[in-house]
């Protein structure tokens, strides 16, 4: 019998297992899912010497409080997160981007993400999780993925299949900067909006609404008026698409989005800005800046290069 496991004392607000997500299922209505902030997901795994696509614990706002039972293993937390590690004789104020050795009966208490939304807790181990369509990512809406597709809840225990043997400490210095200008490409229904609405869209400030989750981010700000139709024939969506609903408010599709939608698309967030976009907490102010495809591709190359650099520094 396997005796290494974590026990959830407090689950946190929206705590799930995530990996890189699942491909090639959008046509049947199953979205990509996967870790919202891809860079922080990868870094958490590298810090504990995991394969980079190993499932980790993703949490939002308030994270989990868990207790570990078993042989020594490393853990690391990424994002902008406050947490404590409670050991038998001491309480450590944890730092992100640094691995810690966890021993039998130690506790991790992730009490909040600071001015951001998502954080990642990686264990230097392979958890015993169910994979569905080659991914353990939990989609709570369709109940797909590990843990029967449900959020992690209090009292649950998760067993560990295999612990990484190398426990040497790993650390990098990285600071999550907050983004205030989201770069976007013109959407496929850009001409559905009046010149005045287009101008407002790129000039005025929007604020992130409380009605935001892994599926989408609703924005509040100036109403974006439509001059053709507030509906289109339903068609496919991808993450980052900005639809404008009938009431004139933009909504940005995030990783668990519905796979098709019928609102006009005014823009699409560039891939390079996605990780920082999802970290904007309710109340954050943002502006949109228009770029062209060539620029978006270059920005992505830079983003990817920076991510690879960080990974190779660990």
């Amino acid at each position, binding site marked *: 019998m396997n005796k290494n496991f974590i026990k959830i004392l407090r689950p946190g607000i929206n705590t799930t297992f995530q990996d890189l997500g699942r491909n090639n299922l*959008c046509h*049947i209505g*199953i979205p990509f899912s996967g870790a919202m902030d891809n860079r922080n997901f990868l870094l958490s795994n590298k810090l504990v010497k995991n394969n980079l696509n190993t499932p980790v614990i993703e949490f939002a706002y308030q994270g989990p409080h868990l207790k570990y039972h078993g042989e020594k293993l490393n853990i690391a937390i990424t994002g902008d997160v406050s947490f404590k590690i409670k050991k038998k004789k001491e309480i450590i104020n944890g730092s992100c981007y640094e691995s810690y050795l966890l021993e039998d009966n130690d506790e991790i208490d992730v009490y909040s993400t600071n001015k951001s939304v998502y954080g990642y807790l990686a264990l230097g181990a392979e958890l015993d999780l169910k994979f*569905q369509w080659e991914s353990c990512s939990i989609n709570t809406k369709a109940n*797909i993925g590990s843990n029967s597709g449900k959020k992690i809840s209090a009292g649950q225990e998760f067993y560990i299949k295999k612990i990484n043997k190398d426990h040497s400490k790993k650390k990098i210095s990285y600071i999550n900067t907050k983004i205030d200008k989201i770069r976007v490409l013109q959407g496929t229904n850009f001409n559905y909006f009046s010149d005045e609405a287009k101008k407002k869209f790129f000039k005025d400030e929007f604020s992130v609404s409380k009605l935001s989750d892994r599926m989408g981010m609703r924005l509040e700000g100036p109403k974006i008026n439509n001059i053709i139709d507030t509906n289109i*024939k*339903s068609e*496919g969506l991808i993450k980052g698409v900005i639809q404008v609903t009938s009431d004139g408010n933009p909504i940005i599709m995030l990783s668990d989005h519905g796979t098709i939608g019928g609102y006009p698309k005014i823009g699409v967030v*560039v891939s390079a800005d996605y990780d920082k976009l999802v970290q904007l907490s309710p109340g954050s102010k943002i502006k949109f800046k228009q770029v062209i*495809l060539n620029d978006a591709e270059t920005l992505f190359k830079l983003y990817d290069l920076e991510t690879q650099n960080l990974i190779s520094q660990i």
Partner: protein
Amino acid sequence: MIKNISNLGDAALYCDFGKEVNKEINSLVIKYFKTLKVKNIEGVNNLIPSYNKLIISFDLKKTNFKDLKKKIEDIKINNQNDLSFKKIQIPVCCDQKFALDINRLEKKLRLKQDEIFNNFFSKEYFCYMTGFIAGMPFVGDLDHKMRVKRLETPRVKVPKGSVGLTEQFANIYTFESPGGWNIIGNTPIEIFNNKKEKEPNLINPGDTIIFKKIDINQYKKYYE
């Protein structure tokens, strides 16, 4: 053929097959979808067919808009391919407790209940696409007399199995979800089964659907 390919963001192709929504255009979308799925082109993450569009999302680390667009333009579609479409019968109970919007439909369509049901159950329907939520089929076309807009205020929770109408289409809620379609009845059968990894969807684009009216006793039998 694809009328136009543009970019949807920096990591997806937006293939436009025309403005109309009809079986011919949709069949072409499905043919492209099936052909591309088999080809398994390097870097392609997802293919999302809809009434008259096909969206191809890709991994920007592996390919880019220009290169992938060229590949898609060069693809030859075999007109004979794939005849593996199914004909599926879906039992629907229109008991009062399931036909949540029948009164609204009577008013909007200016038809009596029986006329609405007779019309709805007398036709075969074609599945244009699946999605929005996992496994939800969008089928058509409803008779011209039966076309109505979606609810002004969508429901926060539409029960699982609900069969809804909007404009020329009908759909089935594969699990409880928010939604604004006019609910005419409920099916007791599982349209999406996430335990089946191979074919979780009962209905797929291109399939023919026949709705069969059942009464409440027949409905209950499915749960015995």
